[in-house]
């Protein structure tokens, strides 16, 4: 049941936002599951992260480690603006995805790409499967903190 709920949530998110659209493409995703939206408020993706506790203010040490990782692993495909390069730009990603979805996607990439509806949709719009970067949980968390910083969170 939990899985079904997450699929519903995922398809809803697809309906509301396709991250990789370059702006002039229209979103023609079916809205067949929208009627069930009350049953799924949060999309955590698929993986072990189900409850990330964000801390305030942001953690500077994590941000700087996240920036280093971004510069070496992510920058080739992801811009910090909302512009698509190979993958979606990161601006606003912490608003359109939950922290759990982001962490699961970074650390459980292949499973998410195979089974998570939002991730699958991104494969279609970006024509690319994000490669698994083999990042640790700590590294993924540092990247999430860097994303929060990029989105002006505190």
């Amino acid at each position, binding site marked *: 049941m939990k899985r079904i709920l997450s699929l519903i949530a995922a398809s809803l998110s697809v309906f509301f936002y396709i991250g990789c659209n*370059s702006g002039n493409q229209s979103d023609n995703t079916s809205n067949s599951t929208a009627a069930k939206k009350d049953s799924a408020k949060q999309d955590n993706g698929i993986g072990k992260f189900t409850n990330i506790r964000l801390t305030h203010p942001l953690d500077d040490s994590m941000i700087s480690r996240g920036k280093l990782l971004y510069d070496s692993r992510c920058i080739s495909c992801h811009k910090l603006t909302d512009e698509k390069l190979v993958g979606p730009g990161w601006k606003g990603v912490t608003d359109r995805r939950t922290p759990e979805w982001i962490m699961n996607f970074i650390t459980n990439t292949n499973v998410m790409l195979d089974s998570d509806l939002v991730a699958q949709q991104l*494969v279609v719009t970006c024509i690319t499967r994000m490669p698994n970067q083999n990042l640790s949980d700590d590294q993924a968390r540092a990247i999430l903190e860097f994303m929060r910083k990029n989105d002006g969170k505190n």
Partner: protein
Amino acid sequence: MSMSSESKVQAKEAWVAPASADKVANPLKGQPDAIAAGKKLYGTYCAVCHGAKGKGDGIAAAGLNPKPADHTSAKVQNQTDGAIYWKITTGRAPIASMASYEKTLTETQRWQLVDFIRTLKAK
């Protein structure tokens, strides 16, 4: 889920830069410092798909169709500097994953990449 059939057909066609691109001269042709800078940029922006040695075998390559170009190949190396520069600049989206680096990289950086790609030619 997959690409639309129309995109698939387009993806199979050769990607050819316009003739006008061939006429654009490389202002940094063969300059050692440009090659060194290009090597660094290549590692950052290109290697994930094209591979560190340019064989089209980067870690992201497995999931791509069409496959990333093999920069060591005659098919790539026989193109003019201007054509390669044009491809880096415009990309091939949405037919292929190759992005446009017009806004991400400066003109100088794109020519530096062209210089480095020349060094990848299969011996």
